[in-house]
C-alpha cells in the first residue's frame, strides 16, 4: 500500500487540483481521472471509482466532494481546504472576469457555437473515461452479469429515459448495494 505516490503536502494537493481544474472545460471529471490516476498515479482506477461513487451519492458537486474527501484523507481539514481551493479559486477568478466582460457588452458571437462543439467533445471525454474506469469492475464482487445489468439499467433510465437521478440512484443503487452485501457473505 505504501509504494504508491501520494501528495506530500497540502500545497501539492492545491497544485494538482488547480492544474486539473484549469484544464476542465465542460466538466472536470475526465481530466481528474487523467491527472490523478494516469499522470500522478495517486489512485488506482478502483479507488477513483470508489471516491467518485461516494461523491455522487452525497449531495453537492461530485468533483468537489471528491476533492474534499481525498484532501481530508491525506491532511485532514487542511488537505480538504487545499484541494477545494485548488479546484475553485483560479477558475472562479476566470469566470468572474468573463462575467464582467459580458456585462460590459463584450461581443461574443461565436460563443454559442464553440459551446456546442465543446459539449460534444465533453461527451466523448466522459465516454472515454467510463470505458477506462470500467476496468475497475473486473474484480467486483457482483460479477460480470450483475455489473453489466446495473451499468445498462442506469445508462438507460438516467440517460435515455431521463428519469430523475435521485430516484434512479435510490432504486438501482439500493438494489446494487443489497446484491453486493448478499454476495459478500462469508
Amino acid at each position: 500500500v505504501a509504494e504508491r505516490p501520494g501528495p506530500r503536502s497540502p500545497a501539492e494537493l492545491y497544485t494538482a487540483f488547480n492544474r486539473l481544474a484549469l484544464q476542465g472545460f465542460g466538466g472536470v471529471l475526465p481530466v481528474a481521472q487523467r491527472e490523478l490516476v494516469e499522470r500522478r498515479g495517486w489512485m488506482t482506477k478502483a479507488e477513483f471509482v470508489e471516491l467518485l461513487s461516494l461523491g455522487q451519492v452525497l449531495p453537492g458537486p461530485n468533483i468537489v466532494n471528491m476533492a474534499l474527501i481525498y484532501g481530508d484523507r491525506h491532511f485532514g481539514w487542511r488537505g480538504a481546504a487545499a484541494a477545494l481551493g485548488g479546484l475553485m479559486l483560479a477558475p472562479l477568478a476566470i469566470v468572474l472576469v468573463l462575467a464582467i466582460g459580458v456585462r460590459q457588452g463584450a461581443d461574443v458571437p461565436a460563443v454559442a457555437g464553440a459551446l456546442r462543439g465543446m459539449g460534444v467533445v465533453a461527451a466523448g471525454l466522459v465516454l472515454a473515461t467510463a470505458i477506462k474506469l470500467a476496468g475497475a469492475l473486473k474484480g467486483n464482487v457482483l460479477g460480470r452479469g450483475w455489473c453489466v445489468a446495473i451499468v445498462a439499467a442506469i445508462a438507460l433510465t438516467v440517460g435515455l429515459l431521463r428519469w430523475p437521478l435521485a430516484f434512479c440512484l435510490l432504486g438501482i443503487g439500493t438494489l446494487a448495494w443489497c446484491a453486493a452485501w448478499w454476495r459478500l457473505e462469508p
Partner: protein
Amino acid sequence: MVRGVVAPRAMNEIAFGPLGVDPAAWWELFVHFALLSLLAIGGAITTVSDMQRFVVGQKGWLSDAEFSGSVALAQAAPGPNLLFVAVIGFNAAGLVGVFVTLLGSLLPSTALALSAARWGATRRDQRPVRAFREGLAPVTIGLMLATSWVLTEPARTSWGTWPLVALTLWFMLRTRRSPLWPIAVGAAAGVAGWV
C-alpha cells in the same frame, strides 16, 4: 453528474441589468442556495430549475436570458460546473452575491461529505461499507455513460457530432496528452458550424 443541458444562446444579445439587491436579500439568497445544496444529488446543476424559479420567477433578480446566459458562461469557462452558481450570484448581487451563493451551495454539502467520508473510513472493512463500495461502482460507470449521452443532446442532429465524439475517444484512449486538445478542436468545429 448528469447535467441539465442549457441551450447556448448568443451572449451578445443579453443585456444585464444593474448590479445589486438589498442586503436582506443576501440572507435569502444564502438560505435558498444552502437548502438546495442538500438536495443536489448529482451536483448543483440538478437543482438549476429550482434556482431559476427562485431567482427569476419569484424574486426577479435576473431575467430569463440573464439566467441562462450565466449558466452558459460558466460552462464555457474551465473548472467545476458548480461555478455557474457564482455567476448567478454575481449577476444578481455583485461580489457579495458570489460569496453568498457559493458559501450557501458549498457549506452544507461539504459538512455532510466530510462527516460521511470520515464515518465510512473508520468502518472500511465492515460488510455494509464494503458492499456500498462494490455495489455503487457499476452505478457510477452507468452514470458516466448517461452523462455522455445527455451531453450530445444539443448537437445530435449535426453531421459532425459523431466523428467528433469518435475522434475524442481515440485521442483519450490512445494518447496521453491533455484533454485540452480535443476541447480546442471541438470549440473550433463549433465556431465553424460543423456541429
